[in-house]
């Protein structure tokens, strides 16, 4: 067993510096690496490029980094829940690369899988396709999309063991699984770090080989973005 445990969030993010490209898991506020995001705020790293499906909300998630102007560029599919983001983008303070969600997920997965490029029909004929190579397969046009390159991938799982094996809960799996192993160093924060051998090998969603560092987060707020209930 290769032990991937680090003591705390600060050790987990050791080596992150200004101008790096970071991948961050989560969909909306669901499954975001809360402890690592707080630490990035503390570290005051600047000029970072974030690959993340969303940009958090004004006072939580990646919104915290936006507020402090730590982000130079966002690569996302949907950023609609964050007013400060929209302001910075429209005023040109923030570079933004909006790409289709499936393409985003697959470009992460391609990085994980050592596939430098692949073809997808998403975005052909739109401004997403501008300047990109396209090609006909089976009578349909496809864009060539390339694997992301990131310095760190920062993800969050429900349970993890010392070997870095991860299990996610419900829809908190989302981009966290696609981003495991998609950067030089993948950091996983978990709600519960369990001893090696306590996870069923058939239930593991991400094998430890994709993870370089793992730690248990201090606390999880797990904020709900849109609490929606039905009448009883």
């Amino acid at each position: 067993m290769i032990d991937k445990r680090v003591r705390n969030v600060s050790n987990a993010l050791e080596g992150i510096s200004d101008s790096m490209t970071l991948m961050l898991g989560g969909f909306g506020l669901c499954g975001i690496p809360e402890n690592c995001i707080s630490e990035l705020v503390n570290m005051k790293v600047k000029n970072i490029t974030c690959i993340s499906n969303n940009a958090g909300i004004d006072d939580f998630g990646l919104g915290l980094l936006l507020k402090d102007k730590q982000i130079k560029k966002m690569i996302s599919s949907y950023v609609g829940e964050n007013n400060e983001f929209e302001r910075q983008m429209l005023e040109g303070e923030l570079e933004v690369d909006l790409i289709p969600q499936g393409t985003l997920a697959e470009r992460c997965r391609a990085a994980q899988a050592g596939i430098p490029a692949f073809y997808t029909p998403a975005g052909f004929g739109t401004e997403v396709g501008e300047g990109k190579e396209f090609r006909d397969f089976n009578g349909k046009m496809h864009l060539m999309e390339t694997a992301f390159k990131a310095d760190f991938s920062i993800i969050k799982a429900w349970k993890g063991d010392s070997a870095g094996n991860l299990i996610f809960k419900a829809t908190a799996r989302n981009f966290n699984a696609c981003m495991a192993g998609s950067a030089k160093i993948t950091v996983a924060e978990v709600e519960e770090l369990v001893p090696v051998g306590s996870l069923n090998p058939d239930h593991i969603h991400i094998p430890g080989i994709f993870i370089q560092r793992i730690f248990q987060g201090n606390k999880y707020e797990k904020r709900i973005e849109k609490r929606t209930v039905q009448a009883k």
Partner: protein
Amino acid sequence: MSLDKIGIAKRIAQEVKSGHYVNLGIGIPTLVANYINKKLEVEFQSENGLLGMGPFPVSGQEDADLINAGKQTITTLPGASFFDSSTSFSMIRGQHVDLTILGAMEVSENGDIANWKIPGKMVKGMGGAMDLVASAQNIIVAMMHTNRQGESKLLKKCSLPLTGIGCIKKIATNLAFLEIVQDGFKLIERAPGVSVKQIVDSTQGNLIVEGEIPEMKIF
């Protein structure tokens, strides 16, 4: 008289067939789930990683780890499964999802759709919409026939940045149900109490009206 959002949702619900895996966009499409015949075998896919999506939870049962693509707390039905985002879009890109229902700002007579961006104004992003429209075999657009200024949203050519080209097959609006064919928007049904003239006046793109146009049956 024209349809309200619930009316549009009810009309679209009639297009859902047994055996369909359905992806619902936010807004009117989300409402469609409420009006599908309960006897049909249908499953809802949410592109953030859930198949077999159920209704909203009762108060106190919300789970921050269980949301839909609109970030709303939801529940699962028996037979549900969770998966990651790349698997989710394998379902979409691989054409395993049978029916996609989504909103639009504009649709053109050749089936182009614009629903993700108003330059310099609204830049929320396309989310999964571009993947959905590029791959889905069967897409229904749910929208108002005209915008707040009373201008038609069924156009010769979209003026806003496109989400996808030549992909839309059916449109349900507050005024009509239409199919996109070779030459433009083919009027299939009128909303209850809406005249053909009203639809003609509200449609900028080429509208094809052949024979008697029946009125929708909305229950």
